[in-house]
């Protein structure tokens, strides 16, 4: 029972990830444009969550506190560094 549940968990993750991959690829190949870019970002974020949840088994329940803190803190660092850099450099770029 437990075994097939864990197996299904992976398959659900795989199916979701496949759909979230196919959507942006088809959009870029056929439609394009600004709307596609926002859908692309949305799909990427959703797929990231799918991978962390279904393949890496992270969740808010049943996880040890320090485990989640490790991952969330790294996420925070990345957001500050990447977001901050793009902000600063984007600002400089528009002034050029």
């Amino acid at each position, binding site marked *: 029972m437990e075994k097939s549940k864990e197996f299904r968990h992976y398959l659900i993750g795989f199916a979701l990830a496949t759909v979230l991959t196919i959507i942006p690829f088809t959009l870029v190949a056929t439609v394009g444009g600004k709307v596609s870019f926002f859908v692309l970002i949305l799909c990427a974020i959703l797929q990231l969550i799918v991978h962390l949840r279904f393949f890496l088994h992270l969740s808010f329940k049943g996880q040890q506190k320090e485990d989640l803190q490790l991952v969330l803190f790294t996420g925070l660092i990345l957001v500050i*560094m990447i977001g901050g850099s793009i902000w600063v450099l984007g600002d400089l770029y528009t002034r050029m």
Partner: protein
Amino acid sequence: MSATTRKSLHPGLNLGEEHGDDHLEAETSVFGFWVFMMSDLVTFGMFFIIFASTAPLACCPGPKELFDLGSVAWQTAFLLASSLTSGMAVLTLKQEHGSRNATTKNLVFWLLLTALLGCGFLYREISDFISMAAAGAPPTRSGYLTALWSLVGLHGLHVTGGIIWCLVIVAGVLVRGVDLRWKLALLRWSVFWHFLDVVWIAIFSFVFLGGLL
């Protein structure tokens, strides 16, 4: 509170109490590897920053002349499928701890399949690099190309490392059997491999698809 009563000892798939002491041993080892993996993600983040800051200046040749959407789709498919098969490998390790021979056989099957899919990914990626260089877009051409080659190349190097690690585990399991040492190696490798796919999501979304839009 004794350690065995806790549901999850470390992030990622846990061996479970059926594995006895091995399950407890995994705690520090796998948690430590997660700490490394997080620092590795920060490294990738740095490469993404460099890429993002050069992307607006991408021209002549730019993404539209260089990227092959079909090839990127193939690479994505290879890596996603390998993520599933690597998941099957750890699931085999976790669940089939009764009969040693059957476990080893299934484990080796899933690991070799994962390595094969990884090689398929690398083959596509390297052919793309070769055709890019042939089309007059080596990394020395522009800042954008330097950033592109470094970011995608760094990921490719990680995949290469992951394949070698996978083959080492296969050899270890065949020679020594599925003992604690290789169980821990497999748990850590699966975390590594899954994160390669996570990084690839960001690469195919922002570098390739974002570039083409």
